[in-house]
C-alpha cells in the first residue's frame, strides 16, 4: 500500500507539474539540441568567439518545465472554472491531457514531418545537433563536485525535515485549508476577500491531492515544497551559468545557495513552515530573470569592440513570451514575490540602459524588435485577458495596494539594520557578496544584461529591506530581507571566483582558500546542526487531531468553537477537520497581540478562555455564540472547572474540550 501510494504520488507530480511545461517546450522548440557557442577554451577562460547560444539544455528543460507547468495548470483551472466545469480528477486529467496532446500535435506539425527543412534550417542557424553545448560540458572534477553538492544538499535538508515534517506549522495549516476547499468543493476558493492568500499557493497542492489521494495530514505538502526549493537552487545554478558563462562560478553559486544555510530561512525552515509563497517566489524569480536574460541577450558589437551575447531573433522573442507567461505565473502565486520582482525588474532595465547610454541607438531597436514581436504581444494579451477577465487575484484591490505601499510606520516595517541583514544572509555570504558586488562593478560587462540583473536584483532587495521609506514600501522588512539570499549567493560565487582568478596561486593562496571554505562551511552549517537537536512532539499533534475529529463529528454549523493558539500544538490544522470556514474555529491568538497598541483587535477570544466567568467573558459568549472551547488542560482548565456553567466533555493529557450548554 505504501509503495502503491508512493508511485501514484510521483505519477501525479510528473503528470501535473512537469509534463505540461515539457510539452510546451517541445511545441515551441522541438527536439532541437542546443546550438553551439563556439568558444576558445583555455581552462575556465572560455570565451564566446562566435555566434550562438543554446536553445534549452536538458537540465534547463527539467528545471523550467516545473514553473511552466504550474503556470499552465493555473491557467487551465481558471479556464475550466470560467466555463462552469468543476475541478475534479476527471476534469484535471482530461484538460491537462488535451493540453499535452495539442502541444504534441503542434510539435509533430512543426518539426517531425519536416526533417529536411529543419536540418537545413539548423545548419543555416549554425546548429550542430551532434555536439553538446560546451557551457554544459563539465570536467570530471566539476561534475563530481556538482553531484556532491546536490547530495549534501539533500542529506542536510532531508535530515532537518525528518524532524519537522509532522504537520504542525501554522502557515502550512492555513494554506492547506484553502487547498482542501478546492479539493472538496471542486471550485477555486474566493478567500472570503482576504488578499493575503493567492490562488497559485494552493492549486498545486490541491491538484496533487485530487490526483494521488495523498492526505493533507501526511508529509506530502512539505515534500512538494521541498521539490520547489531544490528546483530553485538549480535555477540559480543555471542562471549563473548563463549570465557569467563560467562553470566554476555556477558551481560556487550552487555551493553558496544549496548547502550553506541549507536549513535557515528561506530554505528548509520555510519548507517545513509552509511559507509557500516565498518558496515558490524564490523559484520563479530566478527562472523569470533567466528568460528575460535570454530574451535580451542581443547580437552586435559595440563601438568599443565588446561583443554582445547572442540570441537568434526568433528565439529571443519566444524567450520573452515565456518570461511574460512565467511572470503571470508569479503574479498568480505570490504578491510579495511579485512586488520584489517588479521593483528589481525596474532597476535592472534602468541600470542596463544607463550603463549603455552611449549606445542606446544600437540597443533600443533590438529591444523594441523583441518587445513588439507577435510572440510577446500575443502572450501579454492572453495573460492580461486571464488576469482581468478570467481570474483576478484577490490582492488586486485598492485596499491591498494601500497596505503595501506608503511610508512605513510600524517598527517591523521601517527597515532592517545591517546587523540583521548580516544574520539573515549569513556572514560568509554577506562578506563575499559585498566583494562580489564591488568586483562586478569593476569588471562590469555592460552589454551583458545578466550583470545588470544580478547587481540590480541585489541592490533593490537590499534597499527594500533596509531603506523601505526611500521606495514607499510598507511591508514587514524581514520578509523582504529573506529574498536577499538568492542574489547574494550569486554575487558571493562571483566574488570568490574573481578573487582567486586574479591571484597567483601559491601555498599561501591555497591555505587562504582552504580557510575561507572552512569558514563558510562552519558558519553555514552551524545553524543546521543546532536545528537538528529539536525533538519532534508527535504526541501533542496526534491528540490535537483526535480531539478535532471528535468535535467535528459531534457538532454542526450551529455550534461555535474557540481554540487556543498559545498552548495547543498544530492548532492551525484544526480547521481542516471542520471545514466550516477559514475563521472556524475562532482562535485565542498570542497574548502579545492583544497588547499591540498599533493594531487594536477584538478581545473576546482572549476573555472567553482566560476569564470566562468575568462580565466581559459572559458578554462575549452571549455575542459570539461560542459553546465549545478547545484548550490545553494543563494551562487552561482551572477557570472552567470553577464555573458550573461548563461541562468538561473531552479530556486527554494535552487537550481538553469544554462545553457551554445554551
Amino acid at each position, binding site marked *: 500500500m*505504501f509503495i502503491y501510494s*508512493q508511485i501514484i*504520488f*510521483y505519477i501525479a507530480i510528473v503528470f501535473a507539474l512537469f509534463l505540461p511545461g515539457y510539452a510546451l517546450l517541445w511545441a515551441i522548440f522541438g527536439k532541437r539540441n542546443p546550438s553551439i557557442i563556439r568558444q576558445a577554451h583555455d581552462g575556465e577562460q572560455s570565451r564566446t568567439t562566435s555566434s550562438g547560444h543554446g536553445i534549452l*539544455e*536538458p*537540465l534547463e528543460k*527539467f528545471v523550467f518545465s516545473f514553473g511552466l507547468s504550474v503556470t499552465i495548470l493555473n491557467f487551465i483551472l481558471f479556464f475550466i472554472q470560467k466555463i462552469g466545469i468543476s475541478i475534479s480528477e476527471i476534469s484535471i486529467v482530461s484538460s491537462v491531457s488535451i493540453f499535452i496532446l495539442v502541444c504534441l500535435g503542434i510539435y509533430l506539425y512543426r518539426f517531425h514531418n519536416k526533417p529536411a527543412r529543419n536540418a537545413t534550417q539548423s545548419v543555416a542557424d549554425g546548429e550542430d545537433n551532434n555536439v*553538446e553545448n560546451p557551457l*554544459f*560540458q*563539465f570536467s570530471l572534477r566539476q*561534475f563530481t563536485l*556538482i*553531484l556532491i553538492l*546536490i*547530495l549534501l544538499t*539533500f542529506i542536510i535538508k*532531508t535530515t532537518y*525535515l*525528518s524532524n519537522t*515534517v*509532522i504537520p504542525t506549522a501554522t502557515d502550512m495549516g492555513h494554506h492547506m485549508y484553502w487547498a482542501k476547499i478546492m479539493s472538496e468543493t471542486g471550485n477555486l476558493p474566493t478567500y472570503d476577500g482576504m488578499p493575503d492568500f493567492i490562488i497559485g499557493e494552493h492549486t498545486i497542492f490541491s491538484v496533487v491531492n485530487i490526483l494521488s489521494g495523498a492526505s493533507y495530514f*501526511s*508529509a*506530502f505538502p512539505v*515534500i512538494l515544497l*521541498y*521539490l520547489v526549493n*531544490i528546483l530553485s537552487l*538549480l535555477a540559480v545554478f543555471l542562471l549563473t551559468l548563463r549570465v557569467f558563462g563560467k562553470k566554476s562560478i555556477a558551481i560556487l553559486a550552487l555551493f553558496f545557495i544549496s548547502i550553506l544555510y541549507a536549513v535557515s530561512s528561506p530554505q528548509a525552515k520555510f519548507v517545513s513552515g509552509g511559507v509557500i509563497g516565498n518558496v515558490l517566489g524564490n523559484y520563479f524569480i530566478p527562472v523569470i530573470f533567466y528568460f528575460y536574460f535570454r530574451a535580451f541577450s542581443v547580437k552586435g558589437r559595440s563601438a568599443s569592440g565588446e561583443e554582445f551575447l547572442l540570441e537568434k531573433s526568433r528565439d529571443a522573442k519566444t524567450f520573452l513570451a515565456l518570461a511574460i507567461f512565467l511572470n503571470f505565473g508569479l503574479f498568480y502565486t505570490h504578491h510579495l514575490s511579485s512586488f520584489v520582482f517588479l521593483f528589481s525588474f525596474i532597476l535592472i532595465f534602468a541600470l542596463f540602459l544607463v550603463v549603455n547610454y552611449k549606445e542606446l541607438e544600437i540597443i533600443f531597436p533590438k529591444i523594441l524588435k523583441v518587445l513588439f514581436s507577435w510572440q510577446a504581444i500575443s502572450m501579454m494579451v492572453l495573460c492580461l485577458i486571464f488576469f482581468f477577465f478570467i481570474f483576478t487575484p484577490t490582492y488586486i484591490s485598492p485596499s491591498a495596494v494601500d497596505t503595501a505601499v506608503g511610508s512605513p510606520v510600524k517598527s517591523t516595517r521601517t527597515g532592517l539594520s545591517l546587523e540583521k541583514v548580516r544574520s539573515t544572509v549569513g556572514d560568509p555570504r554577506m562578506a563575499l557578496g559585498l566583494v562580489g558586488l564591488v568586483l562586478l562593478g569593476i569588471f562590469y560587462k555592460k552589454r551583458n544584461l545578466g550583470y545588470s540583473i544580478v547587481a540590480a536584483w541585489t541592490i533593490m532587495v537590499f534597499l527594500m529591506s533596509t531603506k523601505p521609506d526611500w521606495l514607499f514600501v510598507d511591508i514587514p522588512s524581514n520578509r523582504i530581507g529573506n529574498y536577499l539570499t538568492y542574489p547574494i549567493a550569486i554575487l558571493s560565487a562571483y566574488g570568490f571566483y574573481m578573487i582567486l582568478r586574479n591571484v597567483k596561486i601559491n601555498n599561501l593562496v591555497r591555505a587562504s582558500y582552504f580557510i575561507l571554505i572552512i569558514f563558510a562551511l562552519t558558519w553555514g552549517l552551524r545553524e543546521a546542526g543546532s536545528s537538528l537537536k529539536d525533538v*519532534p512532539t*508527535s*504526541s*501533542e*499533534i*496526534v*491528540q490535537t487531531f*483526535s*480531539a478535532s475529529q*471528535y*468535535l467535528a463529528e*459531534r*457538532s454542526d454549523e450551529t*455550534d461555535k468553537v474557540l481554540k487556543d493558539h498559545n498552548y495547543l500544538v498544530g492548532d492551525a490544522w484544526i480547521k481542516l477537520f471542520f471545514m466550516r470556514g477559514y475563521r472556524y474555529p475562532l482562535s485565542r491568538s498570542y497574548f502579545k497581540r492583544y497588547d499591540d497598541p498599533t493594531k487594536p483587535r477584538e478581545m473576546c477570544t482572549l476573555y472567553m478562555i482566560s476569564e470566562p466567568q468575568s462580565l466581559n467573558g459572559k458578554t462575549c459568549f452571549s455575542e459570539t455564540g461560542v459553546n*465549545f472551547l478547545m484548550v490545553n488542560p494543563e494551562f487552561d482548565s482551572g477557570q472552567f472547572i470553577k464555573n*458550573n*456553567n*461548563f*461541562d*468538561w*466533555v*473531552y*479530556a*486527554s*493529557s*494535552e487537550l481538553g*474540550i469544554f*462545553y457551554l*450548554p445554551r
Partner: protein
Amino acid sequence: MQQKKIIIFVIILFVLSSAYLFFINDKHLDAGKDWWAVYFEDPKGESPSFIIENNTKETEFEYLVVKGNVILKAEVVEILKGETKNISIESNDLKNKRINVEVYSGEEKMEIYKNY
C-alpha cells in the same frame, strides 16, 4: 549526457528523500500514539455515557461515575492499545446534579463531567 545524469541523480535523491519523509512522518505519528483519552459519547445531549480511548501500552483502566457524593458505577476494564470502550450509564434523576467520570490508568487520572 552529464546533464541527464544530474537530472537522474536529482530525481533519485528526491524520490528517496520523499519516501523517507513519508515513512518518518507515519512513524512519528504512530510513535505519538502514547496517550489515552476519555470523552462523552454525546457532548451536547443528556446522556452521561462515555468512551475511553486507549493508545498506550497500559491496558487496565479503572473508572468511577460519581453523582454528587454517590458512586453510581465503578469498574476496572481492559482496553487494548488502539481500541476504545463505550461505557453506558443510565441517565435517570440527574436534575441539578453534576455527573463526574474519573478514569485512572497507571499514575494518570482524567476527569470529565456534565452539569445537569
